[in-house]
């Protein structure tokens, strides 16, 4: 599954990426494999997403979220 499949409030662990120009930037912002990421909320018009990663808020679009493979964290 990808980050796009998470609902607000759910968390996951990053497994890897689909190739894209955005990936290097995402990684520099702390979204590296094995790190935790939580979907905080969707923007009012449904896109982009407000993520919590490494204890700060990062906003990315659903189209980028779909490039990030994750495993959902239960509970």
């Amino acid at each position, binding site marked *: 599954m990808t980050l796009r499949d998470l609902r607000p409030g759910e968390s996951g662990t990053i497994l*890897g*990426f689909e190739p*894209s*120009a*955005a*990936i*290097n*930037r*995402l*990684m*520099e*912002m*702390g979204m*590296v*494999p094995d*790190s935790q990421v939580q979907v905080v*909320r*969707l*923007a*009012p*018009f*449904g*896109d*982009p997403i*407000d993520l919590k990663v*490494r*204890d*700060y*808020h*990062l*906003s*990315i*679009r659903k*189209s*980028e979220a779909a490039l990030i493979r994750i495993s959902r964290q239960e509970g």
Partner: protein
Amino acid sequence: MRVALCGNPNVGKTTLFNQLTGLRQRVANFPGVTVERKAGTLAGAPHVEVVDLPGTYSLTPRSIDERIAYEVLVGRLETEPDVVVCVLDAGNLERNLYVVTQVIDLGLPVIVALNMMDVAEENGLAVDASALEKDLGVPVVPITASRGEGIDELKKCILNPPESAQVYRWQLMDAVDAKIPALIKQLTEEAPHVKPMHLRMEVLRALAEEEALDAWRLEAPEFVNCIEALQEEFAKRGIAWRHAEVSGRYAWIGPIAQRASHRVSGPATLSDRIDAVFTHRVAGPLCFLLILVCVFEAVFSWAIPAMDLIEAGVAALAGGVRSALPAGWVTDLLTDGIITGVGNVVVFLPQILLLFFFLGIMEDSGYMARSAFIMDRLMKRVGLSGGSVLPLLSSYACAIPGIMAARTLDSERDRLITIMVAPLMSCSARLPVYTLFIAAFLPTGKLMGVFGYQGLAMFSMYMMGTIMAFVAAAILKRLVFKGPASYFVMELPPYRRPRLRQLFWRMYQRSKVFAIRAGKIILGCSIALWFLASFPRTDTSPEATQIEELAIQERNREYAAAQALAPGRDLTVATDSLSLVDSTLVYALDLTARADARYTAALDSANIIRQSTQIRESAIGHLGRILEPVMQPLGFDWKISAGLVSAFAAREVIVSTLGIIYSVGDAEGGVALRDALKADQYPDGRPVFTPLVALSLLVFFVFALQCMSTLAIARRETNTWRWPMVMWLYMTVLAYLASLLVYQGGLLLGFS
């Protein structure tokens, strides 16, 4: 000695810079680019220069800001700094440390300034500076820049800088690490000028970034071949070489950050609670719209008292100068040209300051990022990203900082589109024009008792420009800038209370730039225009003379008739109340009084005709009349056309042009411009300015690119004259067509 301040955006770098330098700072540009270079001397140590680098998340140059930061640090743009102070947000160590690891790798002496210790504490985060210092191997100074805490310790540390020790503390994955020495050797052979301590960084960049690799293609072709072969090999072996560097750095940072900061209380910060409202599904967009409407309402109405005061002051000054100096054209130039012209700029400073104030609050509080978050979906639809919201909103103040702010966009295509449409956002230079015509031709009532019609009209001017900017962006994206989709990765920084002192300081600096830039152009234009409007001199007007002669004859005839009614009585002097008992006399006096009034009115109109003859025969009148046939379909007469000619240097000039056109030769000088506009008539008695003409002119100003400075900055930012020319052309055509539509459409609908 030179100190560079480096760090992520939104970590209080500028606050620290102000604390370190006091007000001893100079703002210039880095050579060759328009990235702002803020430098100052360290308070108490004038031999130490402090340079504030643009905020960056990484030294891998994707945006111009990142490239500049990198090139300063490696000494490519100017002599490399002797010490680098990395500013960190104590509340967000992990991401902040990333760029620190890159700076340390460059082999420069590094000091870490751990900022916002107070906020971290408030949010229940205990940060251990000494643990961080031990792990990083560089001095760490905890500070709270906003309150000036820890600044002295930091200064001491800067004056006794640590040794630079280039030790790679983080681990690159073994498979990649093993290949680095060979690559370094290859690069040294082909590019011996690269400093030894930068070699590793250059190799890693070339490995991970296409653009960095391309940059070596000419100079070090063999090095490029090696890297490409290696990339192929890694791909075959399934090694994630592209992620190697970032993963390695974060793998080192993670545990360090965990050791250094401990969460002691719950995670729901005040910032999160604010966000629950401001980015709420319903409340969020409503708040955004409400904030925008309130800002424009405030800019329009709060500034009025100050503007009235300035207007009165300028008029008094002009009057004083006029009475103190002998009459003549030099005095006219001074009062009508220079003082009035400059006064017309100064009068709009209150509005500009207010706009800068509100934009500054939005920027400093962190709300600007939320507006990007809210608006991204809509911006994406027209081919931009939420990141364009800030440059476009800044363009409400002035397109120049707006175009410059577009630099923060990662995608070159988004940057170009943003630059191309930014001048459609109504800038503060349009405010004078909007204000003048809206105040003169729209009713002052209030809709539902809250929002004045004039404020709403102002708001719709801004909306019109904004909507057209979006349309233009969508068209540009489809037709001109085709290519792969851009991405949107943006931090939502914690909300912060804006620091008023810093806000006012920046308002002052920005307004100063505006006033000087606008002031210079306007002073020059005012003088030139006064000459254009005053020369060649025309002192005779047969029409006016005829009117005067007729008026005298008429007056004499009426006086004779009145005299016949009251023979022997003196009708030219005021009579006492007793004589009013005589009703015939009262009637005769009434007749003469009316004759006098008609006579005065006739003289006034002769005077106006004489003035307008002067302008009509002046150089600017000729220019305006040459254009009149082209502009007539928009409802513009030759005076407006002349004003538009002058406004192609800078929009606000039209106000002073009209001011000069309408007040030249006016000895009274006290008539407000808007009253003069309302009173102006065509020879056949039709008013020159009807509400429809005013609307057409307003629409023209919404769309037209009348600003030489914008063209100049666009030229610098795009590095070619092509885009500024396209920009000017499409906006002028747009303005003409839109005005044509408004005026002709209005006429068809029966408005006048």
